[in-house]
């Protein structure tokens, strides 16, 4: 019984990691006022890029860097369209998703089904990794798992305790006031959107070079859309991202565990989406709840400099 619990928890952490990385990225982006519905596409391009680079060079770290870079470029396009051209963010994000899924399918075709010679290595600390139960649960994952935790803590600290974080939040909450403080609003938004895209690309890299060690079309399997939901579920807080990502990761795992018990896997697959709706509904029930949700005030609205 203990074995099963440990195995479920271990796999929960693994399944939650890509969600965590990409959700942290979307939180950065949305805190600056830019919603990026392109996550699914950016993740997919990140996955194929990391796979191709790792496959060619044999170095999964280079694969990760390439995925982050391409994620920044692709979300930079979303930034250009929605920040500089002030176009509709919903449509732009959807376009990025379509483009990303298309590009990854086109360029990834020769690599479908090929096994990766070397995946991202696992942490193996002599002594720690050998502790019964805890060793397997906490100290025997690949590097992405630990990096995602560190990145989450850094983003939490940055948003909460540094002037950079205050700048980012003020741009999303009240860009006019931010600008009167001498902040270059659009530059901050570009930074946030591209950093967010880099994390989505990294999440994709995790899927192809650590989680599965192969590339196929549809590898992201809707995770990008879950991330959009998780960002709200987390109430735009990095702490909430941890909770949500591991919770939803757990649901992924349970889906397969509960199937033999006669519970329909399809009904279980609805859980992440249904629970997001439920959370939104509970908050929406009261006006004070809507306030507590604390969505960035100008989320989704284009900002025009100097307009009154």
């Amino acid at each position: 019984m203990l074995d099963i619990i440990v195995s479920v928890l271990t796999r929960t952490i693994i399944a939650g990691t890509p969600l965590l990385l990409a959700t942290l990225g979307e939180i950065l982006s949305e805190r600056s006022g830019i919603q990026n519905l392109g996550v699914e596409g950016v993740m997919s391009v990140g996955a194929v890029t990391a796979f191709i680079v790792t496959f060619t060079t044999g170095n999964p770290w280079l694969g990760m860097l390439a995925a982050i870079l391409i994620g920044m470029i692709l979300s930079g396009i979303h930034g250009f369209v929605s920040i500089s051209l002030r176009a509709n963010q919903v449509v732009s994000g959807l376009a990025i998703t379509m483009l990303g899924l298309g590009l990854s399918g086109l360029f990834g075709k020769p690599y479908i089904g090929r096994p990766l010679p070397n995946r991202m290595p696992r942490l193996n600390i002599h002594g720690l990794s050998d502790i019964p139960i805890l060793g397997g649960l906490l100290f025997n994952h690949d590097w992405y798992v630990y990096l995602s935790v560190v990145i989450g803590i850094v983003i939490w600290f940055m948003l909460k305790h540094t002037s950079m974080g205050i700048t980012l939040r003020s741009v999303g909450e009240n860009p006019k006031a931010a600008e009167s403080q001498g902040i270059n609003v659009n530059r901050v938004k570009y930074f946030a959107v591209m950093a967010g895209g880099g994390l989505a690309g990294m999440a994709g890299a995790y899927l192809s070079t650590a989680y599965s060690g192969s590339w196929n079309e549809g590898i992201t399997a809707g995770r990008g859309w879950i991330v959009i939901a998780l960002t709200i579920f987390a109430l735009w807080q990095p702490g909430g991202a941890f909770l949500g990502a591991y919770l939803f990761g757990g649901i992924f795992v349970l889906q397969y565990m509960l199937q033999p018990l006669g519970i329909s896997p399809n009904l279980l697959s609805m859980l992440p989406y249904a629970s997001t709706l439920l959370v939104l509904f509970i908050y929406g029930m009261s006006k004070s709840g809507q306030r507590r949700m604390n969505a960035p005030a100008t989320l989704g609205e284009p900002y025009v400099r100097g307009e009154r």
Partner: protein
Amino acid sequence: MQIDLLPREKSTAGLNLLILLGSLLTGLLAVSVIFAINGVNPAAAIFAIFKGSFGSWYGIKETITKAIPLILIGSGLAMAYKAKFWNIGAESQLLVGAIFATWMGLTVGPHLPAVLLVPLMFVSAFIGGALWGIVPAVLKVRFGINEVITTLMLNYIAAEFVKYLVVGPWKGKTKGGYPYTDDLPAQAILKHIHYTRISPILLVLAVIAALILGWMVYRSRFGYEIRVIGENTHAARYAGINFFRTSVLLMAVSGGMAGLAGAGELMSIHHYLSYPETLSAGYGFTAIIVAWLARLNPAFTIVSGLFFAGIIVGGDAIQISMGMPAATVNVFNGMILIFLIMGDFFISHRVRIRFGSTVHA
């Protein structure tokens, strides 16, 4: 040299068309660059796509077949987007429409003649799509929940529910091990024009519906309310427009249209309910671009729906003739959509380039 971006007060229809064509061409150019990087001859690939869709009778017939659901869904989406209601749930509104139609067809269907059953199935599909569309409208207006998220979540919930139905309670007794429902009764199947997969009833329905929606948006009181809400929320409140009533009605129509498309695919092409990917084939998302290319005028989706149906059919053709992956169509769609919204900027702004002087006017 200095580049100024100035707001454009008035834009003419000719200029709009010019910018639209410019966006399309730039989009195709960008796609060409992608193809070239991928080692495919861009001219040959793009030629093959349009030859596959518009270059033969077979291609044209298939293009019209696939344009029907795109026009039905796209015109409903155009109407919703006109009010800035970002319905991206057409994919699932289509599915729920198909569920309702299937239920009607399999339960009361065998006891009814075609003249009663076909309209009954269309009406129930419309109601199904409408109900699934009203949910996000109520959640938005009454509870302040963003419709992008709710429609997105409802897409997944409906898709999983369809899977649940076809592998579970609705699994057909005559279908062996396959995840399909039983066939609809013969009188529920829409007849095709000879040697095509085009149902004349559906084609007429799609064209007339798009024209009616176009009329509604630009000529009716309801359409006036939609446009005011879309242009200025404050003005809409000031004008005493009932947000709740208008939003619910709007999403009932938008969802209902997608529901009709679901019934159409079911009754004309598939003849039974199966996996959601088979049934919707991404029409709900492609229709978003259809609506955008139509510049949110429902009537224009007749043209833009044909265009994107052509890209779908041509995309199938190059999979076979050039060995390119199915995802190629997504590159087209994504690229064209990006350049279309970029083009919108030049409809509302004009660019002035001045040389020499840097003095502000």
